[in-house]
C-alpha cells in the first residue's frame, strides 16, 4: 500500500490491479481520503473524478461492487445508475471478484498472428480454469482482452500491474511460477 504521499498531479493515476487487494477494505480513509480530495482539485467538475475514483476503489478492493457504486455515486453527486453506466462501459472495471492474479491475454490481431490463442489455452490448462473463472486456490483468473498496445512484443500478457512481453506457450509455466 502506498502510504507515501502522492503528488496531486498523479494521485488519480495509479495502477488499479493489485494482488494485495481486500474486498472489505474501507474506502476513502486515510491516504485514500487524501487522494480522493487531491483528485477533486484537478478537475473543474466533480463528475470528471469518476474514473480515477472508481480506479482507486478497484485498486483497494479488486472489483467494483454495487456497494462501491453507491458510495461513489453519493460522493460525486451522481445517481447509482449513472455510475453503473460508467463501470459497465469501461472494461477495466471488474463487475465481480477475480483471482489474486488477473491474467489478461491480448488476442487482438497482432498477438493473434503470433499464437495468442495457444497461450490462452496453455494458461487455462495450467491454472485449471475456464475463461473468467477464479482458480480453486483463488490465485488466478485468465481472460482474453483486446490490444494492450504492445503488439510488437506478442503475445502480450498483463498480470495485475505487470506486463509480460513476448510470451510463448513454452514460457507460460515459468510465468506462472514467477508469480507465486
Amino acid at each position, binding site marked *: 500500500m502506498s502510504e507515501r504521499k502522492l503528488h496531486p498531479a498523479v494521485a488519480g493515476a495509479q495502477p488499479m490491479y493489485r494482488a494485495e487487494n481486500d474486498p472489505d477494505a474501507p474506502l476513502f480513509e486515510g491516504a485514500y481520503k487524501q487522494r480522493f480530495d487531491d483528485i477533486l482539485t484537478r478537475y473543474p467538475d466533480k463528475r470528471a473524478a469518476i474514473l480515477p475514483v472508481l480506479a482507486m476503489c478497484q485498486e483497494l478492493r479488486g472489483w467494483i461492487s*454495487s456497494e462501491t457504486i453507491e458510495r461513489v455515486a453519493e460522493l460525486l453527486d451522481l*445517481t447509482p*445508475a449513472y455510475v*453503473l453506466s460508467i463501470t*459497465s462501459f469501461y472494461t477495466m472495471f471488474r463487475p465481480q471478484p477475480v483471482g489474486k492474479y488477473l491474467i489478461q491475454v491480448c488476442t487482438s490481431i497482432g498477438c493473434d498472428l503470433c499464437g495468442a490463442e495457444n497461450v490462452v489455452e496453455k494458461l487455462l490448462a495450467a491454472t485449471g480454469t475456464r475463461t473468467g473463472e477464479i482458480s480453486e486456490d483463488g490465485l488466478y483468473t485468465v481472460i482474453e482482452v483486446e490490444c494492450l498496445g504492445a503488439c510488437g512484443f506478442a503475445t502480450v500478457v498483463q498480470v495485475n500491474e505487470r506486463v509480460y512481453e513476448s510470451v510463448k506457450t513454452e514460457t507460460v509455466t515459468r510465468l506462472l511460477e514467477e508469480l507465486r
Partner: protein
Amino acid sequence: MADASSTQKVTIDGHEVMVPPGTTILDAAERVGVVLPRYCYHPGLSAPALCRMCLVEVEGAPKLLPSCVQQVQDDMVVHTTSADARKARRAVIEFLLVNHPLDCPICDAAGQCELQDYAFETGQLHTRVTDPKMVLGRDNVTPEIVYFGDRCILCTRCVRFMDEVAQEPVLQVVQRGHKGYIDTMTGDLFEHAFSMNIVDVCPVGALVNEDFLFKARAWDLDQAPSICPGCSQGCNISLGTKENQIRRAKPRPNMEVNSYWMCDEGRKTVVNWGSGDRLEVPMLKGDSLLPVDWQRALSALTEALRGEPGAARGVASAGASNEALYILRRLMEVAGFDGGYFAVPMAEEHVLAGFPKLALRSERVPNARGAELFGFERSDDPYAEVASHTGALFVLDDPLDGAPEGFGASAAIFVYLGTRLSPAARRADIVIPVTTFAEMEGTFTNFQGRVQRFAPALQPPGLARPLWMSGSATLERLGTGSAYRSAAETFAALAGDYEEFDGLTYESIGPGGSLIASARTQTARAG
C-alpha cells in the same frame, strides 16, 4: 423577428422554402410537408444524432448528413429520397432488425411503432439476418413500466427524458456497443411523478405501461384533443377512447403549458373518467324523485325561478367548464345571486425540473381560476356556506359526498345539476343531468389564466346534456336570454359579459389556448 434578409433559401425535394438561420433540415422539410423518419430525435429533447435514420443527401456534401442536427445554409439543395438516402434508411432499419424479435403481433406498440412504420414503408419485414439473435428479456423499470430489451433500439430518448427533463438521471445505457441496454441500477425501480413520459417518447414498444399492456391495441383507440382535468395546470392531452370509455391520455404539445409532457397522476385520473353509475335523466321531486322528460324538467326549473324562491346560493365544482359556470351564474342571478362556493382539493405539488412551467399543481382541479372569474369563492367548507340557506340552492357537478345531514332541507328550492345521484343529491327538488368534460365541448381556465378548449371524446350517457344547453334553454324560457346552439356561442356570450374574456372566441383561442386579459397584461409587463 427574422427579417427577410436573415432568412435562408433551401430547396427540399424540389420545394423551395425560406427559413430562419439555425433551422435544421428536418424542421425545414416539415415546412414543405416532408416528414423525415427519425428515431433518436424528439423535439422536446437534445439531439444526439445517433440513430442515423434521418440522413439526407445535400448537394455538395461528401457524405449524407443527419437532418435532425444539420442546420440549413442559404441555397442548400436537399434530397430526402435520393437513391443513397433511401438505401441508408433501409440499411438502418435492417440493422435494427438484426436483433429485433419481430414480435409485432403481440407488441403493445404495434400500430404506433416507428420501426414497424418505416419497415413497412421500405418494404422489408423479412430480413437477410439468419444468424441467431441475442435475447435480453423483460424487466420492470418502475412499478408500472416494463422494459423489453429485445425491442429497444437504443435511441436514448428515455434516458434523455429522465436526464434532461425529469433531471433525475436514473435511466442509463448500461454496457456498450451491441450489448447495450437501458437500466436503472440493476434491479432498482424508480418512481417519478412524470415517469410515464418515457413510454410516450419510446419510438418502439420497448417501454410499456403495464396497465395498458395487452388491454387495447393502439389502433383500436379513437382520439380526441382535450385538457387534463387533474389539476390547475391544464395539460393539453389527447384522450384515447374505446367503447365509449377513456382508456388512456397522452400529452399533446403546447410549449406554453406542458411542452410534450404530462404527469402520471393525470393519466391515471382520466382513465374511465365519468364511467360507472351515472345520472342519465332529469328528475323531479313529487312524492319521491321520479324521471321526467326534458320538457317537464325545464318547465319545472323555469317555474321555480319565476316563483321568487329567494336569493340563490350555490356550490359548484371547480371541475366544471367556464361555460357551465357562466350559465349557472346566470341561472342564479335570476333569483338574485347571493354567493357561490367551491372547494379546491389540495395535494403535493410536483414540478417538472427540466420544464418548470409544468407542475402537477397542488390545486387538483382544472378550473378554479375560471370559477373565481364568475364570482364563485373558494371555501374550505362550501357545504357549510349554503347548508342552512333558505332561498334557492344550486349545486353544480359536486356529488355532495360528505355534505352534512339535512343538506338543502331548509332551501325554498334545491336544484341539483350533476353527473351522479348521491344520497344527499336525492333530496333535490329538481335534478338536471349534465355531462363531464369528456362528453362535451368546452373550456377551462388554468392557473395562469389561460383559457383552453377541449373537444368531446365520449357520447353522453342517456339524456345527459351539457349545462350550457339545458341552462340556456331555461334562460330563454325565463325571457332573460336566448338558447345557445353551441358551446362556442355560449362562450361568445360569456366573453361579452365578462371583461376578462373580452375579445376571446373559440376561434381565437385555437388549439393553443389564450390568456385572459389580466394575465395578458401581466405577462406583457413581465416580458
